[in-house]
């Protein structure tokens, strides 16, 4: 009996997970199922699908076979039980909170997050009655102090955008466990190649697929991964999962779907009703991108470390924030959580302040001046004159976007060319 089953390695999963040959045609590449809808086998089959009694496809807002390949692949890479791909990283965050919170509830979020997430939590989420309480990942006690009876979740980034900050996932997971709430980790900057938050106690992992997973700057997308670890029924605090759902004639999702019920709740309640579905074409591009994720992340990390080391020796540069540098404040955490490398993103402080930042982004020829990270191409932005322009100088500095700060996302070009471009740009 062939009962010894190998657990495939990360590189193998990146290529094969979710992507068996197409059952209908034998196509080996994942077909782009560019369809809005799917014919039912018969009336009974249709009823079973709508009642969640059978597995299958109904309508692409709820599920699509190309998107499903992407979902299974990311679930496998993160070590989760299931995943749900959606239209953007921000949409993923909406669906996660929609499944966990009811109006008037709170969630605790790290102050060290992507600026767009800070905006989303401070403004849009408040209008849904989902109240963010901020805590500082440099002070784990601030998470403990933020817990109240209304707390339903804790949200952090593994490596935070933009500053090269590594979060102590395990310590915050302990706070979440004690509070009886799930830990949600945005793993966009690290990707599962560098760090698997589920290994450190994350209950849900989210990504902006737009960045390193897609990897080529060609598609917006997001994903929610269910770790299968959280008991949604224990304290009866999560009615989407532990109460009979009127939308589905009284089904209790946690009881019915067990350790992948959260991903199902995000799909059949969140995605179905709020609607941010991913295009199958984007799913195809992103799933194809993931096939080379290990190679790209290795090169991104090697190039970024070389650039960080080079920049920290330059007379024009006041400081470099990159956890791969031995002198960095987060180096010890990086050795624990991202031992294979620290990814592509860093911030750099220029001695010449605002004007030097503007000059550098204007002078570069290989780096693209744009608001994104995680492309094969090297990218640069001066937050003070763009994404954070509306803030006061004090607010800018607090957000890690002071007038002297430039953010780099190092690509996978030849590192000598990347450094040469920065050298001529700094002059």
């Amino acid at each position: 009996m062939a009962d010894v089953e190998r657990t495939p390695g990360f590189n193998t999963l990146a290529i094969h997970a979710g992507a068996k040959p197409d059952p209908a045609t034998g196509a080996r590449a994942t077909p782009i199922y560019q369809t809005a809808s799917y014919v039912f086998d018969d009336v009974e089959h249709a009823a079973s699908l709508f009642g969640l009694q059978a597995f299958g496809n109904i309508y692409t807002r709820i599920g699509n076979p190309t998107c499903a390949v992407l979902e299974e692949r990311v679930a496998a890479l993160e070590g989760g039980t299931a995943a749900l791909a959606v239209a953007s990283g921000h949409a993923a965050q909406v669906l996660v909170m929609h499944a966990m919170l009811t109006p008037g509830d709170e969630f605790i979020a790290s102050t060290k997050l992507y600026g767009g997430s800070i905006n989303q939590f401070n403004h849009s989420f408040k209008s849904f009655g989902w109240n963010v309480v901020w805590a500082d990942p440099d002070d784990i006690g601030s998470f403990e102090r933020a817990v109240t009876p209304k707390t339903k979740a804790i949200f952090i980034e593994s490596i935070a955008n933009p500053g090269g900050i590594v979060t102590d996932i395990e310590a915050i997971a302990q706070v979440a466990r004690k509070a009886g709430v799930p830990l949600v980790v945005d793993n966009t900057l690290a990707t599962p190649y560098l760090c698997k938050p589920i290994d450190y106690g994350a209950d849900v992992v989210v990504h902006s697929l737009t960045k390193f997973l897609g990897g080529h700057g060609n598609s917006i997308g997001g994903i929610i991964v269910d770790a299968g670890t959280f008991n949604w029924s224990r304290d009866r605090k999560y009615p989407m999962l532990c109460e009979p759902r009127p939308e589905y004639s009284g089904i209790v999702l946690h009881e019915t779907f067990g350790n992948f019920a959260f991903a199902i709740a995000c799909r059949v309640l969140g995605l179905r009703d709020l609607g941010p579905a991913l295009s199958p074409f984007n799913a195809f591009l992103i799933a194809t991108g993931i096939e080379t994720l290990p190679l790209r992340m290795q090169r991104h990390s090697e190039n970024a470390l070389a650039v960080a080391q080079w920049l920290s020796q330059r007379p024009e540069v006041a400081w470099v924030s990159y956890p791969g540098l031995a002198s960095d404040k987060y180096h010890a955490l990086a050795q624990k959580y991202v031992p294979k490398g620290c990814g592509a993103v860093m911030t750099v402080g220029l001695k010449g302040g605002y004007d030097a930042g503007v000059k550098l982004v204007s002078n570069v020829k290989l780096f693209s001046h744009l608001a994104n990270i995680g492309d094969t191409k090297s990218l640069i932005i001066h937050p003070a004159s763009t994404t954070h322009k509306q803030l006061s100088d004090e607010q800018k500095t607090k957000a890690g976007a002071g007038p002297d700060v430039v953010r780099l996302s190092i690509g996978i070009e030849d590192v000598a060319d990347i450094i040469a471009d920065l050298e001529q740009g700094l002059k």
Partner: protein
Amino acid sequence: MIKLNHDSYPDNYIRGILNTVKTIAMVGFSPNTSRPSYFVFKYFLERGTRVIPVNPGHAGKEVLGQKVYAHLADIPEPIDMVDIFRAPEHVMPVVEEALALKPLPMVIWMQLGIRNNEAAALAEAAGIKVVMNRCPKIEYGRLSSEISWIGVNSRTLSSKRAQILPGGVQRMGLGSGNGNDKGKEGDG
């Protein structure tokens, strides 16, 4: 027979069970259409498996054309597998009832969330295969790749295409698990 720890099961063990079982008795069956037992009942009926509901509170009724029995002993035909939808503390009497059947069932299956090691040991001592804390519908979906359509990590990789069952394009078969199954087309 391989020694199982019942924390995890080899895929071939589960596939072997689901491929051989033709008649399932479901103890603790609920005719309520939003209960998990009803889901599993309907799913296997649609795949041509004979599924016999067992629940003394509903004995004599018919659900989807299947007669409900009060007890395993009342079922007038051989049973391949007993699928138990009862809390762990109520599992032992069910297993004892199953052990009194002639012929013996081949498999005792306890649903997702249900585990009773003592009852499992008793059944195994009688040569019966045991699965605990799993759902046969989810396992069928996982091993047939059907469940991949809803983003679930099937934990299976293959360079062979999955088998489409006759009678529809959205129904898949389990295959033998050795990767040599032809992807058979459905007959419409």
